[in-house]
């Protein structure tokens, strides 16, 4: 997968958190909350729901810390936990139906200086937020986060061909939105 698996200086924090040290887990939270929240926001497109999902991801991570074996970086493991939380919520249709389609105005404005221009990035963020759920999920996982279709299919419970079709659809919609 495309999530960076590089080692980080959190091993001792993780060890302490596994032993039940809430303070250590709070430090892990501080280190990772920005990435977790933005992943949730991009995948669900709703700032309020993204906060709930990010919180749920950390609670789930705390509950599952005992299963973290250190084979990957903690941030990589947490990323997967977060994706599963968001996808699990997606399956809860009752909750989703009650939500209003996002406009994308709350998506990140604090942009880095790297290309493309801030205006282009904002357009892209808003266009991603406006995608249909399935297409947005696959686009974010594949093109933003670097997952392969096989992994996306396994995570979302669809066929590889369906994942490819959703990505194709997402790109067509984005192309149309960005050129209109």
């Amino acid at each position: 997968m495309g999530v960076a698996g590089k080692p980080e200086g959190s091993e001792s924090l993780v060890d302490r958190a596994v032993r039940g040290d809430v303070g250590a887990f709070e430090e892990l939270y501080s280190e990772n909350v920005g990435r977790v929240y933005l992943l949730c926001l991009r995948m669900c497109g709703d700032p309020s729901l993204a906060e709930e999902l990010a919180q749920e991801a950390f609670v789930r991570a705390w509950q599952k810390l005992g299963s973290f074996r250190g084979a990957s970086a903690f941030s990589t493991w947490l990323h997967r936990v977060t994706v599963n939380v968001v996808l699990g919520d997606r399956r809860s249709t009752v909750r989703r139906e009650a939500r209003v389609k996002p406009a994308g105005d709350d998506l990140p404005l604090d942009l880095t200086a790297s290309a493309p221009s801030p205006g282009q990035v904002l357009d892209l963020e808003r266009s991603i937020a406006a995608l249909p759920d399935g297409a947005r999920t696959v686009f974010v996982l594949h093109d933003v986060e670097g997952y392969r279709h096989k992994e996306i299919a396994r995570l979302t419970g669809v066929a590889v061909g369906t994942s490819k079709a959703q990505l194709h659809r997402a790109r067509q919609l984005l192309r149309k939105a960005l050129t209109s």
Partner: protein
Amino acid sequence: MNCHESTDRFDDYLDGQLDADDANGLRTHLADCPSCADKLETIRELREGAAALPRSLEPPHDLWPGIAARISEAKVVRGRFWSRTLMAAAAAVLVITSVVTAYYIGRSQAVMMAELPAVVESGESEVLLASFEGLGVNDYMARRTELLNALDARSHELSGETMDVVMENLLLIDQAMDRIAVALGEDPENEFLMKQLVGAYRQQINLLQRAVRLPAEV
């Protein structure tokens, strides 16, 4: 290679995952097919744009208080599986003669450590919760005191380690609730924070209810 075969290989091509024969076949097709070449360029631009998006964004509100309130219950479960050495050490740390007294002493210390107003028996969250109507939390303080008294009555049946963990988690939820209440003071209409506060309240009541129902250990 036809157009369908070509487009199906775009991502692998951009990822450098195509073998040499397929890559050459694709390049040959692209040279003769402006439509596919245009599609490939669009996908390349989208992928580059997506890869350049920010990777981190702080949420509008601090999520930790709500997380701390929720994970404290899980900590109770973990606490029961501490090693014998840790259990002995923990039991030696705290000798509780009265659950209610120990709770309020601990609470006042927790409030002061959190640099919140030095309120001993009523934190920010309690004042706020008492003002809620229609949320089913108006009787919060009375319910908590009732459960603390029930726990007090059972304290001689529970180990020092268990009581230590319960008290520690009660105070942890208290701190979380007070932090949420302070944030609500700055943003009184924030529904997310309000939900977190009510959720934390329920966590604390649940924790006490579970503690009261624990089987006798001593």
